[in-house]
């Protein structure tokens, strides 16, 4: 059985009486790659900060490799590292930025130049060109790469990446992704990655967690539809009108501002208008994107309906039979009983 890197129990984090994170139980196995997806403000960064032991939870416990750990404790200080979305570089040269963590750990200082050159080469920056550059002489993508090099040089047991590719160019994004995977493969580093790039996450992660309002609501394949909801004409259902005039029907929500969650497994896809059962509802849309999930031989299909995107996963075989293509008009149907609320 795979040992756990983290075990979170009853973890809550409050900011000004607002619950940012509320996780009952979560296990993250050692050497695994875990993805976090969710809208802005869903608690991904707060969770990563707690996993990095930068912030402590307001309630609950976080076990790191079966031991209770606190910020600044020696059990985690040199073993976990976080790369933030917009990294902060110290007001020093690139070399000094990367060597900072090594100096904190001590060790043979004569090896520093070699280690730093290797780390810079890993992130695709020429040591000769970049080593002596000041912090202000770097572009956004280069800064992010230097920040990643400063983490990789430490060979951390856990590397937490918060939207690592959100604000960088495509070349830097590709390099950052490759380096993260290299750390996982070569050193067995446990990776936890928060990203909006669900396609990439589903491609590389063994486990993807969908976060919403601080809670883990599923595996990233949930479709979230935000309120407000108004009473439908029949008075039996609530509804929301999309940009293209179509109506999303849902059962009675806990409040008019609640968010409806529809698991992708409950959604059926067809190229013609489906015959609906009594509690089903259908929407017409256009296939916006099709991508492959090689790990599970499945195809992910994004369907645009008005201003709402639905994502569903279908087996490769079925995708071949139905001959889906981007731009194709399709229908999606879901049973109202499948709607859950957050």
């Amino acid at each position, binding site marked *: 059985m795979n040992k756990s890197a983290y075990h979170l129990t009853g973890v809550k984090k409050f900011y000004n009486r607002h619950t940012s994170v509320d996780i009952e139980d979560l296990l993250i196995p050692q050497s695994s790659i875990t993805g976090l997806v969710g809208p802005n403000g869903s608690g991904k960064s707060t969770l990563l900060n707690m996993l*990095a032991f930068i912030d402590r939870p307001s309630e609950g416990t976080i076990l790191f490799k079966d031991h209770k750990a606190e910020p600044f404790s020696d059990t985690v200080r040199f073993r*976990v590292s976080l*790369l933030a979305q917009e*990294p902060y570089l110290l007001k020093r040269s690139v070399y000094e930025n990367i060597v*900072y963590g090594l100096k904190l750990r001590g060790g043979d200082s004569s090896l520093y130049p070699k280690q730093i050159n290797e780390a810079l080469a890993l992130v695709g920056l020429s040591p000769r060109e970049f080593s002596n550059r000041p912090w202000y002489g770097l572009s956004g993508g280069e800064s992010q790469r230097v920040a990643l090099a400063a983490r990789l040089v430490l060979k951390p047991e856990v590397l*937490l990446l918060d939207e690592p590719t959100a604000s960088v160019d495509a070349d830097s994004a590709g390099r950052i992704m490759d380096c993260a995977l290299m750390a996982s493969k070569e050193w067995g580093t446990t990776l936890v990655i928060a990203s909006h790039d669900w396609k990439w996450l589903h491609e590389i992660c063994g486990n993807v967690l969908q976060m919403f309002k601080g809670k883990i609501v599923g595996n990233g394949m949930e479709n979230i539809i935000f309120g407000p909801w108004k009473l439908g004409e029949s008075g039996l259902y609530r509804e929301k009108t999309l940009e293209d005039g179509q109506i999303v029907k849902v059962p009675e929500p806990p409040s008019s501002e609640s968010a409806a969650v529809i698991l992708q497994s409950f959604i059926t896809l067809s190229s013609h208008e489906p015959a609906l059962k009594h509690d089903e509802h259908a929407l017409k849309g256009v296939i916006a994107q099709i991508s492959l999930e090689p790990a599970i031989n499945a195809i992910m299909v994004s369907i645009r309906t008005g201003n709402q995107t639905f994502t569903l996963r279908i087996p490769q075989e079925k995708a071949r039979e139905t001959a889906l293509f981007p731009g194709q008009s399709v229908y999606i149907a879901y049973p109202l009983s499948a709607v859950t609320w957050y």
Partner: protein
Amino acid sequence: MNYIIDGLFQAIQLLIHGDGETYSAVYATIRVSAYSMTVSLLIGIPAGFLMGHHDFLWKKQIRTITDTMMSLPTVLVGLLVYAFLTNRGPLGEYGLLFSLEGIAIGQAILALPIVIALTASAIESMDEKLRVTLVSLGASRRQVLFSTLWEARYGILAASMNAFGRVLTEVGIAMMVGGNIKWHTRTITTAIALETNKGEFVTGVALGLVLMAIAFIVNFSLSFLRNRS
């Protein structure tokens, strides 16, 4: 206009010919500035760090008082320090009145709020991401503190230069607490005030230029160090 140009030449002559009285005033000025800056930096930087980095009860009120004290009138500080150091005062037994140490106490009181308030501002302006970065690279609490101070070094340097400028050019404390005693507590500023009163404008201008030269040397050295770092 001529007396300004004459002053420039006389300043050079005073320094080249090693005028004892001038050197005594320069020496006294450098000594009291060094004493007062050492004390105000030793107390002010940690206090400013605490104020900028931590939240505590009455922080806003203390900050407002500190900011207000940045514009303390030097004569008021001189008066209060005089009252404390005079024979009848609570610290009279230490014999600090009309001494360079006495002036340094007053100047430290003048410089301290500047160092605290500007250091606190420099620390407050540091990005929250700095702490996240330092902790995520493995820094301990103490290392976070020192690295944060180092990252805020330009702000702290600006605070120190600001305080030094105030200390170097003040005249009220030096006059009231020091007594402007020749060869003993006469600083450049009190000497300028005396020379002006005597109508010796040229000597006053010459001493003023010496004061400017000291300020320039100190600022230039700090700028040089800043650029090197």
